[in-house]
């Protein structure tokens, strides 16, 4: 069955997006990508140093088969995010851009207002914009109208590994959004990734949980399997829940009319 994640004009067979931050060594990134099969990886442009030696150049550590998703981490305003995106494209990092505009440095929660403003500008310039937002159906609609290619609600604060604290709000976005929904931030365990996919998310982005694991390649693989399992469960349209027991052999099953 063909089941691909479509973002802008590109499609991906893997629905697990990964990140480059927090690894003990940049050399761990390529084996993680290979083990997980992730085809889209985010990198903070603020950490890209064009003058860095090969061993310190993060872009050199990303497999050629993987699409780069530069992000605007560090931006505090729409204006900064737009500048970072333009620099990213000019530096040859492609048309994808993940908008991160954060104005709360304690909890690292995204600023939806600034994010929408940046999306409006960048989508018009032809970027494939993936905005990171606080889960809210209104912002999801506005991002669609602004030309975003997906909406990325956070599960819980970045790096917290607290899972789907915002599950109810995310579910509402999944139920109403016309954009692909990728849960970004807070997913700390494969079971949480599977849960997001079962809910109907189109993908998940996992960084901290993989990057800080003792075996990053194995963790990447575990998340990939969980994402696949969750997606299959969603597509299979599992039976609904019931507050009471339901006999699998109904007593009145013999009646035919």
């Amino acid at each position: 069955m063909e089941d691909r994640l479509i973002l802008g004009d590109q499609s991906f067979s893997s629905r697990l997006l990964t990140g480059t931050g927090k690894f003990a060594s940049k050399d761990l990134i390529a084996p993680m990508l290979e083990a997980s099969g992730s085809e889209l990886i985010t990198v903070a442009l603020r950490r890209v140093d064009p003058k860095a030696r090969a061993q310190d150049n993060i872009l050199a550590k990303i497999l050629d088969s993987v699409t780069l998703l530069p992000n605007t981490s560090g931006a505090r305003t729409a204006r900064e995010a737009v500048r970072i995106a333009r620099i990213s494209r000019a530096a040859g990092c492609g048309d994808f851009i993940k908008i991160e505009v954060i104005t709360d440095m304690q909890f690292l929660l995204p600023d939806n207002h600034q994010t929408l403003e940046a999306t409006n500008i960048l989508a018009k310039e032809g970027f494939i914009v993936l905005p990171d937002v606080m889960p809210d159906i209104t912002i999801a609609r506005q991002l669609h109208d602004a030309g975003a290619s997906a909406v990325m609600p956070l599960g819980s604060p970045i790096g917290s590994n607290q899972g789907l604290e915002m599950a109810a709000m995310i579910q509402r976005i999944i139920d109403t959004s016309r954009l692909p929904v990728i849960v970004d931030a807070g997913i700390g365990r494969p079971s949480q990734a599977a849960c997001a996919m079962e809910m109907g998310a189109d993908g998940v982005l996992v960084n901290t949980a993989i990057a800080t694991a003792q075996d990053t390649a194995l963790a990447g693989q575990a998340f990939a399997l969980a994402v696949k399992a969750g997606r299959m469960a969603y597509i299979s349209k599992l039976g609904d829940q019931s507050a009471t027991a339901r006999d699998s052999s109904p007593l009145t099953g013999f009646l035919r009319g």
Partner: protein
Amino acid sequence: MSFMQLADEYQTFDFQGYFASVTPEAVGASLARAGQMNCLDHRDLLNLLSPAATDFLEPMAQKASALAVQYFGRTIGLYAPLYISDFCINHCTYCGFNSKTDFPRTRLSLEQIEQEAKAVSGLGIRHILVLTGEAPAKTPLDYLEKAVALLTRYFSSVALELFPMDEDDYGRLNKAGADSLTVYQEVYERDLYREVHPKGPKSDYAFRLLTPERGARAGFRALNIGTLFGIGDPRSEAFMAGLHARFLERAFPYVEVSLSLPRMTRADGGIAPKNLHSDTGFVQTMLAWRLFMPRVGINVSTRESAAFRDQLIHLGATRYSAGSKTDVGGYSVPSNPGLEQETTVQFEITDTRSVDDVACMIRAAGCQPVFKDWEIF
């Protein structure tokens, strides 16, 4: 509300009495609560800094280390200081740049600053911390603006550790390209502050204390504060610095706040430290700060020895200076014309390893050295 109100409140607090009253049970309870943002209050910080908490260092370290990994990953940022002038009109009794100390003073020309910038950026460093003594007549604002603008051509981030200024002047330096501000209160205990800053503009306790707030309002995206260990009582000073950092985190949520914990080392003309902060005390301070503020950056300078710094990697530190020179023109002497004479250092470096050696050590410790973590976009 400014931090002055909190600082005033704690001038009369009986720190020693409180520290002596802390029981192991109180420390254990504070430690058990640690792990989430803002879950510890002022009393918890006092408990974790108390003598009773020294028996809890290992569990504190385990929790602090896990928090640092969660919030910062296995990464350590690198930066280097760059002194552009050692002229100073202050009389700080502990500092090598004290105006009464007799040595040939130097102020780098813009050409000389460029030489220094080339030398430091050639080491791979992308984050620079610019320092001067306090002598506005020698280092006026237009000179500093030009220096900052020049340095942005070589570094992706320019931080300032200059003398306290008003908001407008900081705004101009921010516009010139400086993105972060470091200012140490040196000592929070007001009477002691007065004693060690007898003359000069630095004797104004309040103006210095409120400097980070002016910096945040002026547009700096990052603030680094701290206390100079060796002047006041280390435990109460560590508490005040922690309190100050949390105040700034809450008052300016868009600003990245970090803490440094410099210990006094020998300096020409300076007094010997009165209150030595032991290695154990240093580690306890780091751990208590990390547990109190999981997201705060913690900087460790080359004042500390190589062997000690190696161990701190796993205890919650997030940024290290590397390859540091604390004398004016230190990176490009003797190739920098006019700087052949012996220069005076503000304080002595203890970890004298090169940037490459420090990066190697970080890698060997299972972490990633991060040379660039921001760009002046």
